[in-house]
């Protein structure tokens, strides 16, 4: 075993890192832009140089790179302080869906500006009545000539307020069982009847929205897949969700925990010398290293041209609760001052408090802890699904709470 690149991988890494060294923006003018503007400028720069959506075919704006090359690129790019990625959902989840289900004309029209960051996309799936049970969604579309008319409400839509387009799953036939009555469209987020309301989260931020649809007309040509095939199309999007959401547990890692434990005291000695504190740190490191080396095993599979196994599905299920537990414990070590969120006064500029308040969201987004555990139990271990009381029943006869 070794952690080295193959010669081809090393050449690719060198090419990527030298382009980044020359091109990554650092100037003041760039920093003065809003985060979204920064992201768009950087994405367009990458696109023009052939470093956007690496795995996509060249005609869609990519370079047909292998999965391992995409990973190498991400590793190299992550070494720079670059703007947040506003395109993850569009490029990570919706792009692959368009490739699989859209007409050639729509692929040619929409994929290149999605790759270049000139058009931003959002995903309109969850509803107030259907979160974990996504297929219970109620937003309906009714046929009217060559158009469909959409009425209903979506929720938890990340980035709806700055998106140009969205993909939406709607109910086109309420008289058949729930998975069979769905269809999948793309919509213009600026169309008449689309109303976006930000949701204020418990953190005070607003990353998500409610999106209301009132008599929104979409052309039948905006349908992906057949009428009634919306669930299968949704699965294409959802299969790519892990890639788009995973990672990202911020700076809450063992080195931060050790740094706090060096700075605070227990009974006149650094907390770092306390056995109970050390046991916690060891356990977090076991989780962190376990995820890191699980990633290395997956990379090896990719490097050999194989698909990674199901072991990758544990990332969010381990990482999000760990972020919550670690931030909670570090605040405990800080004592009463652990409550201070003011970045100018708080230890570590308040990132621990922000992590603690943000962690509940990560345990829910993109599949709750409970749904992730079900997925492992059912798809990896082969355990049966819970019996479903709505199975085979027309959607409009299913009991609702």
């Amino acid at each position: 075993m070794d952690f080295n690149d193959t010669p081809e991988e090393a050449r690719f890494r060198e090419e990527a890192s030298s382009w980044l060294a020359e091109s990554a923006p650092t100037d003041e003018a760039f920093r003065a832009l809003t985060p979204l503007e920064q992201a768009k400028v950087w994405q367009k720069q990458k696109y023009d140089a052939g470093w956007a959506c690496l795995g996509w075919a060249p005609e869609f704006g990519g370079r047909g790179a292998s999965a391992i090359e995409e990973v190498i690129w991400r590793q190299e790019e992550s070494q720079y302080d670059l703007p947040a990625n506003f395109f993850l959902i569009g490029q990570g989840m919706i792009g692959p869906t368009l490739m699989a289900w859209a007409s050639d004309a729509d692929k040619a029209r929409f994929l290149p500006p999605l790759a270049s960051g000139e058009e931003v996309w959002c995903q309109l799936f969850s509803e107030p009545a259907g979160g974990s049970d996504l297929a219970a969604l109620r937003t309906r579309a009714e046929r009217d000539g060559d158009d469909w008319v959409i009425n209903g409400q979506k929720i938890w839509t990340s980035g709806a307020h700055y998106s140009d387009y969205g993909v939406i799953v709607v109910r086109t036939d309420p008289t058949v069982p729930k998975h069979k009555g769905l269809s999948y469209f793309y919509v213009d987020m600026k169309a008449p009847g689309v109303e976006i309301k930000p949701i204020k989260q418990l953190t005070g931020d607003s990353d998500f929205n409610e999106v209301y649809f009132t008599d929104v007309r979409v052309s039948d040509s905006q349908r992906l897949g057949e009428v009634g095939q919306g669930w299968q199309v949704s699965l294409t999007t959802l299969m790519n969700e892990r890639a788009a959401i995973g990672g990202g547990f911020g700076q809450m890692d063992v080195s931060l925990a050790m740094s706090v434990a060096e700075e605070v005291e227990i009974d006149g000695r650094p907390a770092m010398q306390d056995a109970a504190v050390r046991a916690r740190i060891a356990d977090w490191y076991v989780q962190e290293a376990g995820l890191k080396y699980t990633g290395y095993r997956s990379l090896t599979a990719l490097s050999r041209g194989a698909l990674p196994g199901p072991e990758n599905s544990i990332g969010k299920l381990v990482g999000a609760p760990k972020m919550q537990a670690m931030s909670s414990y570090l605040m405990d070590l800080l004592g009463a001052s652990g409550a201070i969120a003011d970045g100018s006064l708080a230890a570590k500029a308040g990132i621990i408090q922000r992590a603690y308040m943000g962690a509940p969201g990560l345990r829910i987004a993109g599949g709750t802890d409970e749904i992730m555990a079900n997925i492992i139990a059912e798809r990896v271990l082969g355990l049966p699904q819970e019996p479903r009381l709505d199975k085979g029943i027309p959607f409009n006869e299913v009991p609702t709470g």
Partner: protein
Amino acid sequence: MNFEFSEEQQLLREQARGFLTEHCPTSVVRSVLDGDQDWDASLWQKVAEMGWTATVISEAYGGLGLSYYELAIIAEEMGRSAAPLPFSSSVYLASEAIQRFGTEAQKSAWLPRLAGGECVATVAMAERAGRLVFDRLETRRSGSQLSGMKVPVADASVAEVAVVLARSEAGLEACLVPLQQAGVSLEPVLTFDASRGHSTVTFDGAEAEVLGDCALNPEDWESLLDGAAVLLAWEQLGLAETALTQARDYALQRFAFGRAIGSYQAIKHKLANMYVKNTLARSNAYYGVWALAEGSDELPLAAATARVAAIQASTYAAEENIQTHGGMGFTWEFDCHFYLRRAKLLSLAIGSEAVWQDRLVSALSAQSAAA
């Protein structure tokens, strides 16, 4: 990135699994647990014929001179079958100590016979309850004579020689002590895992030679334990995988309230947790064996990480496997208890979880100070 076993090593795994499935079904574990024997001597013979006892012993001393990658694979399969053998004592610890610290004469005298499985060796460390503290060891060597008491000593009843941690005027030493001699007496000690024999070993002026003819640097012994921690982690991972498989199979076949208990989320989530812990333990065991096989200076961190992860995964899987089985899991008749016994036994050998959590953080501090 090449963080995977080679094809040849994968073949070894298949061969080892096939061999132990055939020669070490659970009935073999059960007969040692139920009977008067402390091991399955004929299984040991077969394992030796497979060359497993010779894996990492150098060819100069009759070994195969293979790497720790191969030994880790065998260790996992040993765990998977809960083999009632003194493999960890003899192979991960005693043979390693002799190979690392012994003089030429000591290596020539013992390693070929250990490689061939003609004899078994063990190590004797613990003397009292609590953590092992080198400075407080009371077993003493004076001249060629050793006196003191070690308890519990795993596999002493089937071993011909023990590497005994002791002190003399020169400081800490590892002494090589043949066990069939007048100055040594063994008393069986009942532990919760009777599929491995344990003894109180009393030395009363026993003939002993100092391994390597010189005092032992405590760091060298710690390094030996790091290696054993990695191999024990692989063995415990095997135990954890069997416990998860048993729980999964039972959850599919056992019905309650008209459906398989594996369809209830309370059971699914328990099994998903086992899978998560086993996956973390496996990936950390990869890290451990990489550091051990490549001689990396990350070994102290990698070994401690692998051991803590494997202790947590194997005890959780063994405990919750029984819980998944309900009352039947608590019976002697079902096999679930084999994995509970062995997982906990191996968790207590060479320092328990808290010891290795502490070592992990020390190694982490040292590594970040060096960076």
